[in-house]
């Protein structure tokens, strides 16, 4: 074990963890939305993130645009992608039950990974921005500008989703359908349409998280699965039903990982995350702020 050299170091690691956690949080919100509408864990969330990361990589390679622009275009593109995925694939199995949907998500994940590996090759890719080496200093802690921007975008995305769910009638319909599809249908809401919308939003959030990821880390086609797991852990920590809660769950995970990585080692950071996940599932399945996953309030 390896303790913190000073309080400033501790703070630095802590802050890094928060930034990391914001990314997990955004993907996790998407995951929890999709869980609400399909009642399954969408394992391909991470693979979709990586797909977005590749989009950004190629955008940066072929155009002079800064990667931050990707945040803007990825949202509509992935909304469309999500809609197509749902209406083309998942809608068909939605009626058969949960196991086929779960397997389909799994199959999609494997398919995406392998296709990306084949088309883009399995090498690591990185995306840099002109802020890559700039950092703001505050109280001795260095805030990398990249990470600050990413964290801000994550918060903005979370706020947008929250407003959508709370203030628009379609957002309320999304919440209603994920709670009780039958009752919603009786009131005239079309479950397939609402589910398609929910799913699309979940996918576009994965897209945003993917853009964030590629700006900060190098990535390869197989990273996706770990990210899916981490997003899932974030949802477990935060609890379903609360957008802010899930973001917080992501932040907690990020901090936990960051701390463990520094004090013990990177490898153990993963194990600690999984162990914490199991503990939360067993002893506090409702997470910190939300309802139990899959249970009605």
């Amino acid at each position, binding site marked *: 074990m390896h303790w913190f050299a000073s309080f400033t170091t501790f703070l630095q690691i802590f802050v890094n963890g928060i930034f990391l956690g914001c990314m997990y949080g955004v993907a996790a919100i998407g995951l929890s939305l999709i869980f609400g509408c399909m009642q399954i864990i969408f394992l391909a969330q991470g693979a979709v993130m990586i797909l977005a990361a590749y989009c950004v990589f190629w955008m940066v390679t072929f155009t002079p645009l800064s990667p931050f622009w990707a945040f803007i275009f990825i949202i509509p593109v992935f909304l469309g992608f999500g809609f197509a995925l749902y209406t083309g694939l998942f809608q068909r199995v939605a009626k058969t039950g949960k196991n086929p949907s779960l397997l389909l998500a799994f199959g999609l994940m494997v398919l995406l990974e392998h296709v990306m590996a084949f088309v883009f090759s399995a090498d690591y890719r990185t995306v840099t921005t002109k802020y890559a080496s700039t950092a703001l200093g505050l109280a001795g802690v260095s805030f990398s500008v990249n990470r600050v921007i990413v964290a801000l975008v994550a918060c903005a995305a979370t706020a947008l989703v929250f407003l959508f769910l709370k203030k628009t*009638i379609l957002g*309320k319909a999304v919440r209603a359908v994920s*709670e*009780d599809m*039958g009752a919603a249908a*009786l*009131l005239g809401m079309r*479950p397939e349409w609402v589910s398609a919308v929910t799913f699309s939003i979940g996918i576009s959030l994965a897209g945003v998280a993917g853009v964030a990821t590629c700006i900060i880390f190098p990535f390869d086609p197989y990273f996706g699965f770990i990210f899916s797991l981490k997003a899932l852990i974030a949802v477990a920590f935060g609890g379903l*039903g609360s957008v802010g809660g899930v973001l917080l769950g992501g932040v907690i995970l990020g901090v936990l990982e960051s701390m463990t990585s520094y004090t013990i080692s990177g490898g153990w950071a993963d194990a600690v995350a999984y162990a914490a996940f199991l503990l939360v599932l067993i002893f506090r399945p409702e997470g910190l702020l939300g309802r139990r996953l899959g249970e009605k*309030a």
Partner: protein
Amino acid sequence: MGNPLLEVEHVDAFYGVAQALWDVSFSVEERKITALLGANGAGKSTLLKAISGVVQPTKGRIVYAGSPLVDCRPEMAASSGISHVPEGRRLFSGLTVLENLELGAYLPSVRPMTKESLARVFGLFPVLKTRMRQLAGTLSGGEQQMLAIGRALMARPTLLLLDEPSLGLAPIVVKLLFDIIKKLNRDGVTILLVEQNVRKTLEIADYAFVLKTGVMRMEGQPAQLLGDPEFRQAFLGRIG
């Protein structure tokens, strides 16, 4: 005989794999309160579900406002003007009272009138206005039932299906509820009321049907039924 708003003709229906209805026929008259009575498991809920599209009849047909409902999904029934308040109410407990009501007016045809519909519902159920921002799951049984009915009314239905609204409620609340049902009917809503509380139901119903283990057994005006010995024995526990 007036105008039938709803006609159910020789319908068979299943609840899961078990048959729940056998050759059931009846009709609901416009602007009247029709009651559907029967013991637990008689198939009353399944019949309502067949009308609102939750369950598809395997035989026979259902005609609403002159046109047959074919392969009708719940969303389609709702947009045709049928509002079904299901057994157990099925409120969105994670959403507020106001949000539940707003969702009641989800259909594009009624959404522009949401404000007026809300005013009407709050007029009928003032307690909902005071609890507007509370989560639906935190309401009392009676309040939840009112919210469920209010939510169904937000869609300005022509036919309102009520599945055992008095279940689990205190008598004083039941009286209030039935008064409201009468008022709704006076305002022009056709009501099909499924109930186990026979006495109170017959006080407000214009006509009643009795379902027994999936088969339509008896029908008649409340006075007729109350005078019938078989009916009295089955539901009121005595003859004469």
